[in-house]
């Protein structure tokens, strides 16, 4: 299928409504990105999302768009409360996969002599890779249900971090409406073994240094300055979320038949937002989102503990505070202005980040004048970015922006390209230490497999759907 596109400006492309599409598609991308996109099926997926009932505004894709399953990765779509649908495929298997960024009172120069020991200790203390978990942490079924209801707040109650952390997490680290009764035994079982684990694939833990500041005022508000050490945590709801998604895809396949919804791809199966099937999924999805918030909170506590042990400094000296924690696989009820009218919408962000503007009530009071922090990880060899949300994003993309670099190379192609290269050795020569459970992951996750995230945030900045604050350079990376 050839998808027709019309260039609107240097970073916007319209896919005019045709066939079963109920609305246009809108892609944020550079001309070069669009060339690459035509070689895969992501644009068709933008069209497919536009066919679902009750879509409000265009079916959108952020500049890190790539071929997903059902929805494209980088997809944003909002559905009306009365006529719209919820689609688990529009959230993804890793419900509330997200990124947390910690600031510190340390400088790159200060920790360089201990970087190897820090990387080793983080790799040891924070379970990463398949089947890995801490022997000193076990979860009962009843306690797990508390995690599902309370999210990061549960972890803080157990001593994993402090209440201040909660102020700097999207939604204070909990999504309301969670109901553990809507979750299968199988999901509970998978979750029990995996809370407090990083996982594998593109998940990571990274020690970084602040390399460039683009907006001194915003950086100052976030407590960032050049040469400072930060820590990024990228993980989600692990097997718990995967199972919730899988369970509810089966429910939604039946629901789509029941409600007469025609699906261009079974992975887009969905149910009307006013149906029991939708309500049950949203309650289970909230459980998974809360699991992910608790997961990142626990890992944060172990990061702090590890820094204290290795560097022999106390919490007051290290000051490893949460800058922010964002979801990038989620569906949320939000109020937005559409054609001058305030409307309640279910916004699906599949590989996209909320980017609320300055002044928004859901932003921590300390950040309200600069906008919501947006955390955009790149690849392990280049850099990551800190941005803030903008009024432009709020009015054009339901307050959404990109979530990362986006792959350009398949895993097989990455393996081929890596032949003859010692990826870990080459990164070490550039001052980036990697600790990984498996070589396969490192090869597949090498820099060349991803778009240059600088190009992605450049489009975001040009389009006005995000504002650059700082660039972070990796120093040590822990991978599953």
């Amino acid at each position, binding site marked *: 299928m050839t998808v027709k596109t019309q260039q609107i400006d240097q970073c916007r492309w319209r896919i005019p409504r045709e066939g079963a599409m109920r609305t246009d598609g809108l892609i944020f991308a550079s001309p070069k990105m669009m060339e690459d996109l035509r070689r895969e099926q992501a644009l068709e997926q933008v069209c497919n999302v536009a066919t679902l009932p009750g879509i409000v505004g265009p079916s959108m894709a952020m500049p890190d768009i790539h071929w997903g399953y059902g929805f494209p990765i980088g997809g944003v779509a909002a559905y009306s409360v009365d006529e719209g649908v919820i689609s688990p495929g529009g959230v993804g298997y890793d419900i509330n996969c997200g990124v947390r960024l910690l600031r510190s009172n340390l400088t790159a120069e200060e920790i360089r002599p201990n970087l190897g020991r820090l990387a080793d200790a983080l790799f040891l203390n924070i379970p990463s890779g398949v089947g890995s978990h801490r022997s000193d942490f076990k979860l009962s079924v009843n306690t797990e249900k508390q995690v599902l209801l309370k999210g990061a707040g549960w972890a803080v109650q157990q001593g994993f971090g402090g209440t201040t952390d909660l102020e700097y997490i999207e939604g204070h680290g909990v999504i309301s409406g969670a109901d553990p009764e809507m979750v299968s035994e199988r999901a509970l079982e998978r979750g029990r073994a995996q809370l407090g684990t990083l996982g594998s694939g593109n998940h990571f833990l990274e020690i970084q240094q602040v390399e460039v500041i683009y907006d001194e005022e915003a950086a100052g508000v976030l407590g960032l300055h050049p040469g400072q050490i930060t820590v990024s945590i990228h993980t989600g709801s692990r097997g718990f979320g995967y199972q919730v998604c899988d369970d509810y895809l089966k429910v939604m396949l039946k629901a789509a038949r029941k409600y007469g919804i025609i699906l261009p791809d*079974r992975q887009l199966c969905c149910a009307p937002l006013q149906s029991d099937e939708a309500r049950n999924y949203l309650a289970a999805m909230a459980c998974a989102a809360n699991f992910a918030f608790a997961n990142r909170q626990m890992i944060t506590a172990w990061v702090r503990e590890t820094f204290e042990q290795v560097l022999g400094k106390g919490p007051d000296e290290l000051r490893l505070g949460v800058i922010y924690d964002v979801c990038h696989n989620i569906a949320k009820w939000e109020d937005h202005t559409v054609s001058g009218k305030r409307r309640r919408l279910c916004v699906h962000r599949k590989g996209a980040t909320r980017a609320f503007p300055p002044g928004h009530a859901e932003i921590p009071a300390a950040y309200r004048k600069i906008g919501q922090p947006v955390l955009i990880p790149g690849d392990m060899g280049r850099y990551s970015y800190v941005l803030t949300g903008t009024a432009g994003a709020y009015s054009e993309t339901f307050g959404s922006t990109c979530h990362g670099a986006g792959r350009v190379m398949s895993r097989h192609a990455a393996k081929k390209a890596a032949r003859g290269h010692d990826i870990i050795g080459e990164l070490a020569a550039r001052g980036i230490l990697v600790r990984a459970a498996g070589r396969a992951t490192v090869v597949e996750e090498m820099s060349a497999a991803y778009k240059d995230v600088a190009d992605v945030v450049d489009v975001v900045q040009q389009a006005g759907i995000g504002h650059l604050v700082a660039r972070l350079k990796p120093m040590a990376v822990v991978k599953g």
Partner: protein
Amino acid sequence: MTAGNGFRLLEHTADMGIEARAASCRELLEAMAKGLVALIFGDSPVRAMINTKLEVHAEDRVELLVAWLNEIVYWSESNNIVPATFQIEAAGDDELLATVSGEPFDPERHSLEHQVKSVTYHQVCLEETADGWYGRVYVDL
């Protein structure tokens, strides 16, 4: 990307796929299962030391293919087992009964190439063609 045994691993920008061809639907389901194991564990040598029965239900054959492969993912992950053989004893339009075997994952002998989040319904296909049966799935990694 060919891996033999009637299946082929497919390229995808972020994830991977599996396709297979076989003379019968049962053989196709077995070939797809072997493809899944190759995707997760590469060509690790594996012995049939543990047996279990898996029973899967779905709404139609296409969904049965996804449910079957996800059942193997769950069995393997929750028991830390590398699957070895698959024998489908009964397969209809909406249910399947199989005996599967495998051995506990041993990092000395087995390599874990990819962790599978789930087998997806994206562009899933299971159909009888002029040459036999054809199946395809994409897997979220």
